[in-house]
């Protein structure tokens, strides 16, 4: 089973130190982000149990939080996660077409991952980029004012990076 390395442990300690003594459970959301980033982009039951142990809380306290918030992935995802907003202001600006275009191009539906494990497509609700619609989140950053051409370029960029890193 995976455990935090030294650098991740340092970050864990920095997070926990923000709260009064005995209130370390407050670090749960940030620590789950850290765990997800550290262990392959998703939270397995083992990872959640490990987080519970680290924070000295019971596993159920971790499960109930991990299942509540939409950013925690409870099953494996592709190397690149496209989270496309579909709420009102993005819909008005053509997000349905963007979702369909990505789906057709990659041969997957929202919620699915390509067979090569490269891409996962997910629809999400309002991400606070309504003036720059249509948009999607990719990792830590937003990709805004999306067009079909921009989607092509982003997918090419992901494939090139993957080839370069192999």
């Amino acid at each position, binding site marked *: 089973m995976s455990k935090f390395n030294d650098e991740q442990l340092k970050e864990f300690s920095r997070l926990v130190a*923000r709260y009064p003594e005995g209130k370390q459970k407050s670090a*749960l959301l940030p620590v789950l*982000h850290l765990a997800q980033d550290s262990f392959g982009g998703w939270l397995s039951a083992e990872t959640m149990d490990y987080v519970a142990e680290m924070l000295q809380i019971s596993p159920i*306290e971790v499960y109930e*939080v991990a299942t509540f918030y939409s*950013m925690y992935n409870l099953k494996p995802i592709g190397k690149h996660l496209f989270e496309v907003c579909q709420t009102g202001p993005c819909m*008005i*600006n053509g997000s349905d077409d963007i979702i369909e275009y990505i789906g057709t191009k990659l041969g997957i539906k929202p919620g699915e991952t390509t067979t090569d494990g490269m891409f996962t497509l997910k629809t*999400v609700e309002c991400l606070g980029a309504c003036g720059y619609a249509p948009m999607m989140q990719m990792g830590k950053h937003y990709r805004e004012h999306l067009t079909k051409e921009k989607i092509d370029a982003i997918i090419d960029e992901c494939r090139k990076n993957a080839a370069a890193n192999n």
Partner: protein
Amino acid sequence: MSAEKMLPQIIKNMGVKLLLDKAHVPGIRFFETYRKEGGYQAVEKALKQMDPASIVEEVKKSGVRGRGGAGFPAGMKWSFIAKPEGVPRHLVCNADESEPGTFKDRYLMEFLPHLLIEGLIISSFALGSNDTYIYIRGEYAWIVDILEQAIDEAKAAGFLGKNILGTGFDCNIYVQRGAGAYICGEETALIESLEGKRGNPRIKPPFPAIEGLWKRPTVVNNVETLAAVVPIINMGGDEYAKIGVGRSTGTKLISACGNINKPGVYEIEMTLSVEEFLYSDEYCGGIANGKRLKACIPGGSSVPILPANLLLKTAKGETRLMNYESLSDGGFATGSMMGSGGFIVLDEDQCIVKNTYTLARFYRHESCGQCSPCREGTGWMEKILKNIDTGKGKMSDIDLLWDIQRKIEGNTICPLGDAAAWPVAAAIRHFRDEFEWHVNHPEEAQKRNYGLAHYADPIHVPA
């Protein structure tokens, strides 16, 4: 997205700018430039020349109302904080901005992080918070880095940490990331989340001012509200209150989006007319692609949608202004709300049924599930609206929708239920014939939209 790419969206105009006046200065994101431009003078003034009670007094005098959406007077909220002996108090900054149409706090934090930090230091001093938290929505991940850098810079310059400016006041600010939940913008859900739990709103009372974070007295304020404390201290509450009109004092950030020529974040004086905001080149620049205005949601997705003919003028035929009182003129029958300042514009090609369906889907997705009227009702509304949108609706569905939203409103622990009910109610109230057209012409409705119809026709004003 880089700062440079977004800069052209800052529009300078003739109105008073209290928050974004320096947003165009290169390097303003960093301490050195911010300080050179007069930053942190309000902290010096507040901590060296004022005491906490007089700061609260200035904020009260300013009349500034909560900028997150509820519009509650911030100074009054501050005055409610309990001060039991030996119990720490906390200030929490609500940066969970998630109301569809709203992206103003993101803008402020991204480009002027030190303005927020400065407001937080003064407000923490006023409220007696030595450990202050910024709860930011999880998706704004890159802004966490921007804020943490600003905090480090302020600390290095002696404006945060121990014994700030030699006054004996200690203050630390921490940035806490959420993880994707609109409900955490509700202050008690936010506190639950900050305690490492699901974002289930608490039953009030007790209010956070008495029993908040870790059962300690807590004040939760929106990003824009706390940033506004800086100009309030610099100019004084009385001067701040002179800007604007009536109970709409100071300036307001509006995030404009939808079918307009110039989407973006604008700082306005609340004496501006809706018409000027929408059509002048200084702001939205008019409807995109030469289309006509059909409808607008003026204050974030939960406030009532208005047809074009009730947006620019009130039902009484008066010019509608961009402020709390004027936007709500006419009540829900013919008015709307200022809300969070998320201004969503729909042109003549937009379908009200489809738009309402996406909003209902949003609220169903975001309901925490505690209260059955909201948990079940939002799901039913989404399904019925989807049916009508895809040509499978019945005429009785429209009345059923009305009935469901009435049974959600006012029957839940937190305002998410109301927020889900109002858009559906307003859409049926003003656009009922568009819903009926969908039901009566299911096939045609898949091929074309209802269009502008009569929604921009002048309203008959009774003499």
